[in-house]
């Protein structure tokens, strides 16, 4: 990769992870609000480790669950991931094994859950779950469609997040400091007018000093 290209990639990537994570967080917050649910979460599939990872959580468990992992093909989330089929379960707490597993990993046992696969092109990237929406006499297929729409949005955000992470990893491994330069540029770009002007002056001065050194002073 040429230096210019590396710098351009770095500028595009740095800071984007935070934005995509914020987007995922917003998806689970909105899903939770729309369904009037107790919690909502997005799991990302980590293919290398063959595990599902809590990537964003709204409501119950929001402070403690992000980053927690579990095996990718057991339980309801695992079934949804592997089979690509959406599922709504109303009284899952009656399954003693489910209750035990979930309580151990989350400290919160939901009564009901809706789970939908996050599909992007032909890949399955993870699972979106909505936990404990208020009990109603009859579930409707319209709700299933709404969940599908959220899932589509979440899948796009998850795809962007994965790409950003991959690019950041490549840059970090190239080890030539382009990520530091890009980070600096992003920081200065995000400053308010006066601060930004001062920051740019400082960088210009630094540039001059470095150029002089390059010239043999």
């Amino acid at each position, binding site marked *: 990769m040429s230096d210019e290209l590396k710098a351009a990639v770095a500028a595009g990537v740095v800071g984007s992870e935070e934005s995509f994570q914020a987007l995922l967080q917003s998806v689970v917050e909105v899903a939770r609000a729309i369904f009037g649910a107790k919690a909502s979460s997005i799991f990302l599939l980590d*293919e290398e480790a063959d595990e599902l990872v809590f990537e964003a959580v709204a409501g119950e468990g929001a402070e403690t669950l992000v980053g927690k992992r579990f095996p*990718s093909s057991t339980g309801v989330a695992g079934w949804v991931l592997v089979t*690509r*089929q*959406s*599922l709504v*379960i109303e009284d899952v707490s*009656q399954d*003693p094994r489910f209750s035990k597993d979930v309580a151990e990993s989350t400290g919160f046992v939901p009564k009901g859950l809706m789970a939908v696969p996050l599909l992007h092109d*032909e890949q399955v990237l993870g699972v979106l779950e909505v936990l404990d929406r208020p009990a109603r006499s009859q579930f409707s297929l319209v709700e299933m469609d709404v969940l599908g729409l959220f899932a589509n949005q979440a899948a796009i955000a998850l795809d962007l997040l994965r790409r950003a992470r991959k690019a950041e990893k490549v840059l970090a491994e190239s080890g030539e400091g382009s990520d530091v330069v890009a980070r600096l540029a992003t920081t200065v770009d995000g400053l308010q007018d006066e601060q930004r002007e001062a920051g740019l002056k400082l960088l210009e001065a630094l540039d001059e000093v470095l150029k002089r050194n390059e010239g043999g002073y």
Partner: protein
Amino acid sequence: MEPVPVLPSQMSREWAFGSLGGAGVRVAVVDSGIERGHPVVGEVQQAVAVADDGERVIEDDEGDLCGHGTACAGIIRSIAPQCELVSVRVLGAGYTGSGPALLRGLQWAVEEGCDVINMSLSTTKSKFAETLHELADRAYFQRTNIVASAHNMPVESYPWRFSSVISVGSHEEADPLTYYYNPDSPVEFFARGVDVEVAWSGGATIRCTGNSFATPHMSGLCALILGKYPDMTPFQLKSVLHLVSSNVGGGR
């Protein structure tokens, strides 16, 4: 030529389903396993699993790793109480091995000559599509009926899109025997899939929603028809399902 039943020009549900309860029909549930001894499911005649190497199919005593396979088996049994159930577990070896395991499990059930194969699952990987398609056609030609869950999300997935399988989506009504023929392909039938009371692992009974629960309703109906007419071809079976569906001539 193998024997084939002659279909009458007028058909009723009584003619189609009869009262034999699917006796003698072997129904494979390709899923997460089936819990042994669950009161709703009853006896499971055979249980196998795809081994970790993705090749061998071995006897399975793991039961159900999720609850879903047990749910499907319970639905099939509630409609066709006399049918034989075969659990083909393709889940549990991790996500990475799941595609090949699914193919191998389906292949095993086809080679075994099961009469009905319930597949409440799908794959989006195009590299598996060709093999799945060949398997689905092979099943169709040897009189093995694959009943597969449709997707209600805008994605390409298989095997439900193949015309050689019976594809199933959900309707919202509570009657387990009400099902609709859908002339707007690719989904062919809508069966009960909302708020269904199902068997679940741990001896539990819970309420579930999803196309994956509509599918075993159709598998159960297929078992009823094949119990009465074991020589029926998949083409005839689909025709009968169409003719006695609730919106055509079945009246419920």
